[in-house]
């Protein structure tokens, strides 16, 4: 906690960047995405145009903004002081992501422990939902169709294996980076991306299986809602993580990063471990128990 105040290793100047147009472009993009999404969801024409424009503008903005940062980093603008800021920033960002998932896990626990048992309680059974019994997975008392829940020991177990292995490969890549063994670095970073993409492919297959054969949909009551929203947001985060890994993979191929100066690599690795840990929570509480 005391690094900021230490006098021993302190560099003289902190890099304070020049003005840039990317933030306002990002805000414009998000504004277009929001308006476009509202139009799409309310079946008004033209929403897709706004949404697509917003997404493209956001991607362009991120491309340029990160491009500036990479150029600055490779140009030697960042020392240990800036590096520490990045570490704090990434840590707190991941903490905020943890809290986002905590909200959805909270919804899952509420449905399983509170609302579904309560809907099967004596008074609800007498006056509102006769015959409804408490069980999980449940789509609630008002849900008529039959559905099958997703089992844990098929694809989800394979996916657990894939993600845990990818955590190992990214660690080997990091070790190789610190040892200066670039070939191993590139190879194991590539393995990590392949494992991530395999995970996503199986996830897509699992969703298709759920919709076509299990009659398990987003609209399948509390179980469908929590299942698809939790695994869906996780899958989205894995997608982002895989894109981030791909970016640093190409940076590694271009010879970026030094054994003692590679925060971008570590930040991505932290993020990858974070999606890994979230998956373990999902596997235990959504699929298994």
């Amino acid at each position, binding site marked *: 906690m005391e*690094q*900021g*105040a230490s*006098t021993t290793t*302190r560099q003289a*100047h*902190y890099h*304070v*960047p*020049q*003005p*840039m*147009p*990317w*933030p*306002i472009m*990002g*805000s*414009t993009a*998000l*504004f277009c995405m*929001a*308006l476009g*999404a*509202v139009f799409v*969801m*309310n079946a008004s024409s033209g929403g897709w145009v706004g949404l697509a424009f917003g997404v493209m503008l956001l991607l362009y903005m991120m491309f340029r903004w990160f491009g500036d940062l990479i150029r600055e980093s490779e140009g030697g603008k960042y020392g240990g*002081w800036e590096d*520490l800021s990045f570490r*704090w*920033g990434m840590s*707190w*960002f991941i*903490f*905020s992501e943890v*809290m*986002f998932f*905590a*909200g*959805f896990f*909270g*919804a899952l626990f*509420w449905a399983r422990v509170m*609302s*579904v048992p*309560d*809907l099967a309680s004596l008074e609800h059974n007498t006056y509102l939902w006769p015959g409804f019994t408490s069980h999980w997975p*449940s*789509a*609630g*008392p*008002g849900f008529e169709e039959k559905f099958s829940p997703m089992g844990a020991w098929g694809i989800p177990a394979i996916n657990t294996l894939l993600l845990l292995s990818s955590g190992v490969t990214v660690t080997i890549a990091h070790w190789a980076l610190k040892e200066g063994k670039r070939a191993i670095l590139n190879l194991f970073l590539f393995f990590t991306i392949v494992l991530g993409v395999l995970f996503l492919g199986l996830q897509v297959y699992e969703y298709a299986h759920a919709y076509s054969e299990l009659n398990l*949909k*987003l*609209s399948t*009551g*509390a*179980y469908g*809602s929590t299942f698809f*929203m939790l695994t869906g947001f996780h899958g989205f985060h894995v997608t982002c993580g895989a894109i981030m890994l791909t970016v640093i993979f190409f940076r590694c191929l271009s010879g970026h990063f030094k054994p003692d100066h590679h925060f971008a690599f570590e930040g991505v690795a932290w993020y990858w471990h974070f999606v890994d840990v979230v998956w373990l929570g999902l596997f235990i509480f959504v699929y298994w128990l």
Partner: protein
Amino acid sequence: MSAVIDTHGHAHDHHGGYGGVMRWITTTNHKDIGTLYLWFSFIMFMVGGVMALAIRLELFSPGIQFFNPDLFNQFTTMHGLIMVFGAIMPAFVGFANWQIPMMIGAPDMAFARLNNWSFWLLPFAASLLVISFFTPGGAPGVGWTLYAPLTVQMGVGMDLTIFAVHLLGMSSILGSINIITTILNMRAPGMNLMRMPLFCWTWLITAYLLVAAMPVLAGAVTMSLTDRHFGTSFFNAAGGGDPVLYQHIFWFFGHPEVYIIALPAFGVVSQVIPAFSRKPLFGYASMVYATSAIAILSFIVWAHHMYTVGMPVQGQLFFMYATTLIAIPTGVKVFNWVATMWQGSLTFETPMLFAIGFLFLFTLGGFTGLVLSLVPIDIQLHDTYYVVAHFHYVMVAGALFAAFAGIYFWLPKWTGRMYDETLGKWHFWLTMIFFNITFFVQHFLGLAGMPRRIPDYPLMFESWNKVSSIGAFGFGLAQLLFLYVVLKAIRSGAKAPERPWEGADSLEWTHLPTPVPYHTFETPPVLK
């Protein structure tokens, strides 16, 4: 002074290549961004204030006078959202931007470009909120808490509001990460954590609360969105969900949010009272611990907003006891502020007046909070005007008064010009008197049973409602005087002396000239 001489030699016009309006849009300077936050906050304060006056206009007499109930509900909803997310929170982020780097001896915020984005998300989010009034069905009329299942029944405006909350949350999270990193990593050599001005401490803890609480709100409104459009059943009992789940998730965010608003106000007051008492803050360490204690407790008291929704009595007892515990650290703070003034060499310039006004009225709001924390009483008072009176004592007389104190306190430092002391005092007394005329009587209305968020009421409530409405319009007009005082100070105020307040002793007063140059502490100050 040597530490602050600007090495660029053109301190006041060094804007890095962009001029005119693009300077403000692209700026990475913490002072520019602080100014943007504060002006944005004031504009939103006016917008939300106009809605408040519309509410009070309708409530001037029983019966439906001006607005249909639907529009009335939209006003109460948007008034709350805009005042919380558009006015109060950005005001204190503005103070954080201006003050934290100067108070800890840093050249700027840790992430100067991200800082720009944190601000520039806000006008777009606010636009989404305002646009919702002009969509079919109008703005959401569900109350600022956006409770399910009402949210499912609303029109297009609800979707716009949900996305606005996403953008506001993103802005808060990015801003908070920036503030935490700045405080932890950018302090000048020798500026230990326990030497920081208390304002920095309160913001460090506030930022932590924001990073922890805002993503949960984002999750809650996302669930509302998918319940509305994608067939999920998070808040639908027929699907095994529960509307009460929304309330739990919302208030898990919502109660920390109360301290997100209050703690920076405590920080400002903790700078102002010592300065005008010409004494160091009494019990600095205990203030830090009390602030931390409030932050921890804020995450385990949320269900005191929900005593009446149906909860096991053990739950009610737990949340009641936890809530009453908060009175202890808050009491420590009030005690310390009073003890700071004890035997001080007091003067009563406008910042000090607002700080003392804060001290009296916030304490009163704290006491009514204690009353409401007690389950048997709360069940009587839930959703009455007593609650409205309580949280306006905390939000307006607490947070807003502290923001006014901060503006009068630091304006000379920022602009190099003094405000008109006589007009400042007028602003304070008008604000103080009209605030109490508006809100004190609402305690009576609530105790007599007048429900909140209803455009009509029985005849027996008429007289106090008239008093409250008159007070509200007086309060609103007094804020135009505030705008005039600030503009007059900026345009033609007398030149401020180097140390306008001789009792103020944090770095911006002792180590920087008045007005402060555009870039400060590019080389860290030397601290004894």
